[in-house]
Each structure stands twice: as structure tokens, then as C-alpha cells.
């Protein structure tokens, strides 16, 4: 009897191990394809998996494959709004010592506060010199993506955050001009609200953070706004209180169901004529065009009131990992990302403008051309929501404070929470 039972157990173990071995067997060849030996590959991590983003990435990959035909490009993109999934996967890989060669990140404190602080990305000054990028990237951009004199990423594109989208027909029907100052904006929105039109379309919490940063910029002006992030503006000061009060007032002009709208839904309100204004980055323009709408006729744009002449930017950029398995492949990729050809292939498709100032304007549509002009002439400030001015910890504390404020508006406690956030994770003492 014992023998029979032992047999059964052995049989079960055999079955189990054969299952596992077959799975191993089918997995192994795939593994080898993924990670070829030697330097003839590069693994690039991003969150560009769908729509215009993926098309733009594919165009850049096309240029890469043409120039570096011997090097295999491994596209490890994982979707998730603003890269939340990609960043989690990246974190687990970095902590087990298995970095990809290069990854996408928002240029600025998001990269510096996380990866430079963690010693995970290499400085790229030599590459910048060799490729002559310092001559073609705007001067005001370089300090914002550097730390201690070292430049840490190669920006591929530039998006603008402080854009006020509007419906020209709605404005005309109500006799409202496009406002340039915050006071004008309130007057305009009062008129619209009296006429029964939703003045400002707003969406879920992250779009509210986006709105906050543009209102802070519009109320404080670019110097004081920049000061918030480098420690020279006191978060507890009266001017910040006034700016937060402006923000509170702006919120009163928004749609009551904001929390249940995605950024696309909110932008669509403007296109449909259900709202007059929407503050959103200029990826909204790509969305409008995908809906088949025409610039200036179906939608118009202006800088968010109070920030005329200031370009509040964000940039997607690529890094070089410390301990990259294929450093030569990674450098090759970075060269393409920073090259005129690469950026000209990527940006028109993606719906953003080049980080380089020498891209061919004729490749871009009406809005993007005006953005390119502004980029070359305006003062440059950074976005909060999209990782330029504040590191991830600081930003997440501000976001929590904002959530609590919108649920229960109290400027004083909001300001106190912001002061605490700066002390905990920013340069304030």
C-alpha cells in the first residue's frame, strides 16, 4: 500500500515538474530574443503606447533603425496616465539592480529629485558638448533640467501648460473678449455665468492641480512663482494667500460635475459649446484635431490670464541609466532623441514642439507654430503637475492638500498644508 502511495506522489511531482519545464522551455527562447548578448541592443522604457504618442515614438524609432541598423531597439513602453505604472515597474527594476538602458521622464525635478538623488542616472554634459546641443536648446531650459552644473536628460519635446482654450462662438455670442489679466477673466466669467453658460470646464483632481499651477503663475507673476520652488518666495506670505483666494474664486466658475470628467471630457465641453473656457496643456489641441475640429474657427487659444508672455513648460525627456546593460546603444538612442531629424519626426505627430529651436516650422500646424514662436520669445517657467519645478514627494503632498481643499474650501488651512509640504520635501526650512 505504501508503495502505491509513494508512486502516486512521485507521479504528481513528475507531472508538475514537466509542466513547469515545458513552460520554461517555451519561455526561454523568448528570453534570449529579448536580451541579445553584446552591445547590439538598447532597451527604452516609456509610457508612449497609444495614439499620437506611440506614432511619434515609432517615427523616432524609424530614424534610429535607419542610422543604427545593427542595434536592436527594444520598446518597453507601459501605459498609465503620466507614467504611474511605468514608474512603478521602473522602481522595482532599479531596486533589484536590473535597470533598462534609458527611460522617459519629465525633465526637471521629477527626474532630479528621484533618480539623481538616488544615483540612478548619468550626467550627459559630454554628450551635449559633442552634439552641440547647448547652442540649439533654449538657455532658460538648461538650468531647469540640471543639478549642480550637470545636465541629466535629453528633452525631446516641449508642451505648454498655461493655455486657455476657448470656444470663439460662445465668447462672441456673449460679447466677451479673450481676457489677458486675472481681473478681466473674472469679469468675463461673471458675464458668462449670468448668461447661463458654464464659464470654465474642469475635470478630475489632476486637472485641478494643473489649474492651480496656472492660476498661481497668473496671480504671482513668473518671478514670485519661480520663487515658490527655489525657496525665495515664502509660501506663508500674503501674496500667496491672495493667489490661493484667486484660485478659490476661479473654482466657483466651474462645472459641478468636474470630479466625474476626464481631461478629455472637460475639453470636449468647450468644443461642444457647453463651456466657454478650459485650462489644459496643449495636448488638448491634438485631441481637438482628432475630433476633426479646425483651429481658430472651432477653438481658440490664449495664455492663461495673468501669464501672457510666460511659457509654462513641461518636457518629455530621456535619460542614461547608471549601470545600463548597453551603454553604447543608450547613447545612440539619446543622440537620435536630441537630433533635429529625430525631433522633427516625433513632434508634429505627437502634437508638441521641438525642444530644439531649429526645427522646421513648416512641419507643424497652426497652433504649434504659434507655440514655437512663443517658446523662442517668452520667459520660461516650469510646470508643477508635470514634474518640472517640484520633486515627486513634494508634488504628492501638494496634491493631497489640494484634494482636501477642494472637498472643504478653507484657504488658511490649504496654505498651512502647502507650507508644511515645502518644509517636508522642498527647500523651505
Amino acid at each position, binding site marked *: *500500500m505504501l508503495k502505491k*502511495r509513494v508512486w*502516486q506522489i512521485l507521479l504528481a511531482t513528475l507531472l*508538475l515538474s514537466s*509542466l*513547469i519545464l515545458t*513552460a*520554461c522551455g*517555451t*519561455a526561454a527562447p*523568448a*528570453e534570449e*530574443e*529579448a*536580451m541579445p548578448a553584446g552591445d547590439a541592443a538598447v532597451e527604452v522604457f516609456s*509610457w*508612449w*503606447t*497609444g*495614439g*499620437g*504618442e*506611440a506614432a511619434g515614438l515609432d517615427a523616432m524609432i524609424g530614424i534610429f533603425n535607419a542610422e543604427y541598423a545593427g542595434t536592436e531597439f*527594444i*520598446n*518597453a*513602453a*507601459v*501605459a*498609465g*496616465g*503620466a*507614467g504611474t*505604472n511605468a514608474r*512603478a*515597474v521602473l*522602481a*522595482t*527594476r532599479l*531596486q*533589484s*539592480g*536590473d535597470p533598462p538602458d534609458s527611460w522617459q521622464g519629465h525633465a526637471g525635478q521629477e527626474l532630479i529629485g528621484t533618480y539623481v538623488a538616488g544615483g540612478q542616472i548619468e550626467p550627459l554634459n559630454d554628450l551635449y558638448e559633442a552634439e552641440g546641443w547647448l547652442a540649439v536648446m533654449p538657455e532658460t531650459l538648461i538650468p531647469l533640467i540640471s543639478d549642480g552644473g550637470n545636465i541629466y536628460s535629453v528633452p525631446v519635446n516641449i508642451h505648454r501648460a498655461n493655455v486657455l482654450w476657448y470656444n470663439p462662438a460662445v465668447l462672441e455670442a456673449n460679447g466677451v473678449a479673450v481676457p489677458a489679466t486675472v481681473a478681466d477673466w473674472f469679469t468675463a466669467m461673471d458675464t458668462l455665468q449670468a448668461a447661463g453658460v458654464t464659464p470654465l470646464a474642469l475635470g478630475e483632481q489632476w486637472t485641478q492641480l494643473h489649474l492651480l499651477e496656472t492660476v498661481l503663475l497668473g496671480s504671482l507673476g513668473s518671478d514670485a512663482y519661480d520663487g515658490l520652488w527655489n525657496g525665495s518666495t515664502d509660501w506663508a506670505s500674503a501674496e500667496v494667500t491672495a493667489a490661493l483666494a484667486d484660485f478659490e474664486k476661479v473654482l466657483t466658475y466651474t462645472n459641478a460635475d468636474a470630479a466625474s*470628467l*476626464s481631461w*478629455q*471630457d472637460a475639453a*470636449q465641453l468647450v468644443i*461642444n459649446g457647453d463651456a466657454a473656457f478650459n485650462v489644459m496643456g496643449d*495636448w488638448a489641441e*491634438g*485631441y481637438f484635431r*482628432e*475630433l*476633426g475640429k479646425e483651429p481658430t474657427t472651432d477653438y481658440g487659444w490664449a495664455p492663461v490670464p495673468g501669464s501672457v508672455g510666460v511659457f509654462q513648460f513641461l518636457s518629455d525627456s530621456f535619460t542614461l541609466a547608471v549601470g545600463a546593460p548597453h551603454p553604447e546603444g543608450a547613447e545612440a538612442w539619446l543622440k537620435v532623441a536630441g537630433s533635429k531629424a529625430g525631433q522633427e519626426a516625433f513632434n508634429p505627430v505627437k502634437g508638441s514642439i521641438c525642444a530644439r529651436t531649429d526645427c522646421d516650422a513648416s512641419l507643424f500646424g497652426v497652433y504649434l507654430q504659434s507655440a514655437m514662436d512663443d517658446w523662442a520669445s517668452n520667459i520660461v517657467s516650469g510646470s508643477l503637475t508635470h514634474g518640472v519645478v517640484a520633486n515627486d514627494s513634494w508634488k504628492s503632498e501638494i496634491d493631497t492638500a489640494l484634494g482636501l481643499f477642494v472637498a472643504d474650501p478653507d484657504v488658511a488651512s490649504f496654505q498651512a498644508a502647502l507650507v508644511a509640504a515645502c518644509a517636508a520635501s522642498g527647500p523651505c526650512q
Partner: protein
Amino acid sequence: MKRLYLGKNWLYIPLILLVIFYLLPMYVMLVTGFKSFAEIDLQTMWNLPKGIAFDNYIEAWKVLSPSLKNSFLMVIPATLISSMLGSLNGFILAKWKFRGSDFIFPFILFGMFIPYQSIIIPLVQFMSAAGIKGLVGLAMAHIIYGIPITTLTFRNYYASLPQELLEAAKIDGADMLKIYRLILLPISIPSFVVVLIWQFTSAWNDFLFAVILTGNTEWPITVALNNMAGSQIISWNVQMAGSLLAALPTLLVYIFLGRYFLRGLLAGSLKG
């Protein structure tokens, strides 16, 4: 007996109401899956599409089909093995109380509650240190983290079976494995159905472990689906078409397994 069958047909009324409740969201999914991008608007969500074009489904299929094989390779062994383990464990814990078995059940059960976000970092580190990669690692993770719930389901199912069943067999001289094979397995079928449904669904639909434990050549269908959504401008029409396609294998599993929801087979063995 006549009382049982009186007016049984009135049950169709609440059933139809339930069908409406369940079908409403599916109607929206189906209808949106046939719309073009420009038609997607919160205002017109209930409207039928302007035309029935299968473009979205074709596009979704192109994106999703390479990962289909990965999903099957991983899900089938994971589901079968974790269900078998659960059945064995449940049998032992419910009917063969040895010293300490009353502690082992809560010990295993508690493991169900661990939030996956807490453990992905040590899990990845363990897998990399042990050299276990890709779909094998993913299947292993599903098996291991499936043990608590499969054990729970089977243990409770077996606990509700009368002890006389086993006593009769023991008197006949059967030992544990024989009882398991000849008596318990045949009547476990409804419970197996429930467990297989759960394990298949949770392994098939899992995103977190899939994206963290596998590389881009071995991603199962959930990651491909998530990637299809994109990060910024999401094309809901293609996304819904893709999700319905991705849910089809699971639906087929439900339909196939549902046939095994048989009436209890206990009647025969008790009389003997």
C-alpha cells in the same frame, strides 16, 4: 410537491429586471465598440453607432493577438495547479484534523489579505535572486497567491459535507488518498467549478503582477490591453472593442464550466 411548482414562472420578472441591470453597461460597451472616435461623447453615450463597422475590433485584434498565447501559457497551468493544491489543502484541513490544523487554516487564510502593492518589491527581488523569470515566475506568483483563496473555498465546501460519508469509507478500510480520489473528487465538481472560475479570471485579468514580473516579449493580454489605452488621449471605441475581445476566453470558460453545476451526487453514496 405541487406547492413547489406553484407560480414558479413569476420568477422571470425579477430575473428580467436583473438582466437589464447586467446588460446596461454591456450595451454601452458594445455600442461604443462600434463607434468612430469622433462619435464618442458623454452626451451621446446611449445612441447607437452611425454604422456597424468592425474596424475597431480588427484594430484591437491586431494589437492584442500576439499576447494571447502568453496569457494562455501562463493562466492554464496556474489555474489548474492552484485549484488542485486548494482542493488537497481544503480536504486535509476540513476532514483530517491533526494537531495544529486549526492553526494552519487561519495561517494560510490570512495571506489573502496582503495588499499586492506592499509585496511587489520583495517579490521582484526574490524572483531575480532565484533567477525565475517571465511567464514561469508569473504563473508561480498566481499559484502561490491563489493558495489561500482556493484553500478557503474548498475547505468550507468540504466542511459542510457530512462526516458519515468518510466514516463509511474508513470502515471499508480506505485510506486518505483513496477517499480523496474515489469519494471526494467526484462530488467536488461544483466547488472546482467555482474555484476554476475565480482562478482563471484573476490570473487572466491580473495586470500588476503581469507588468512587473514579465518583460515586453512575454506580456499577457492585460498589459497589451492597458497599453492600447494609451496614456494621454484614449480611444475608448477601440478600447471597448479590445476589452470585449479579451473577455471572450473567460466567458467561454464560464459557459463551459457552468455545465458542471450539477445537482448533488451525494444521494447515492449515503444510501450505500
